[in-house]
């Protein structure tokens, strides 16, 4: 059920691309930052630097 006629139509989101993509992008970005923070926190703890 593919309803996009072209890649361009998909990217512009019927003129709303400016609003749609940042919404999804920011959500992904926040999750990545959170995961990165946790992994560096864990590494720091494992190395025993803070103790």
């Amino acid at each position, binding site marked *: 059920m593919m309803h*996009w006629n072209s890649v361009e139509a998909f990217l512009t989101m019927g003129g709303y691309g400016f609003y749609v993509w*940042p*919404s999804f992008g920011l*959500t992904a970005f926040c*999750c990545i930052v*959170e995961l990165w923070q946790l992994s560096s926190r864990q590494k720091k*703890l494992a190395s*025993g630097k803070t103790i």
Partner: protein
Amino acid sequence: MNLMKINWYRYSSPSAFYPLAGKLIPYFFSIAAVLSAIGLYLSFFVAPTDFQQGEAYRIIFVHVPSAWISMIIYLAMATWAGFGLALNAKLSYMMAQALAPTGAMFTFLALVTGSLWGKPMWGAWWVWDARLTSELILLFLYIGYMTLHSAIEDTKKADRTSAIFAVVCAINVPIIYFSVKWWNTLHQGASVSLTKAPAMAFIMLWGMLLMTLAFWAYSIAVALWRLRCLIVEREREALWINDLREKE
């Protein structure tokens, strides 16, 4: 395996829960990855264009799940805080503490994605409407909880004080939920409710539900991960931590 034979009470101690949490994390991350992949596919390739809002409505697939999860995490956080107060259980307080940053993140995302949706549909990034204002208050409550916890030097006192704050402020969650009913708001009413058939296409509903479950699994994985860090940070004097470090 007979579930009744497991001594569940054992897991209320940080030393027993630490390895269990470590085992659970990859499962929740895998669930989150699979569900978000299917959810995103439905959101962009299967769900049809909305007849009123065009493609802009697709923001719903991150906006509504973020908003739901922001409230669910708050309720979970307040519940753990309540358990902590009632049972004086250290691990319960840590659970509450582990949930707060992720809850704040989803609240922030709900507000920003809402703003990105509000601009093309309402013509404004922000309005002081009951739904938006109460969600903004939720963000301040998360920040308040975290600030309060970190501001108090004595960990036990910090746990108790911030837990009371979290429990008392839980009143804001039903206010957010019912705000669209109680006040005249610009924000649309509930699209999905338990009492009547959903006011949206079946496939859109599925996309939203899958994304919500994906965020849910993600939140559990991240909270457990943060909990493990908190356990190590807070139990550094305990002997079992050193034993564990030698093993790993």
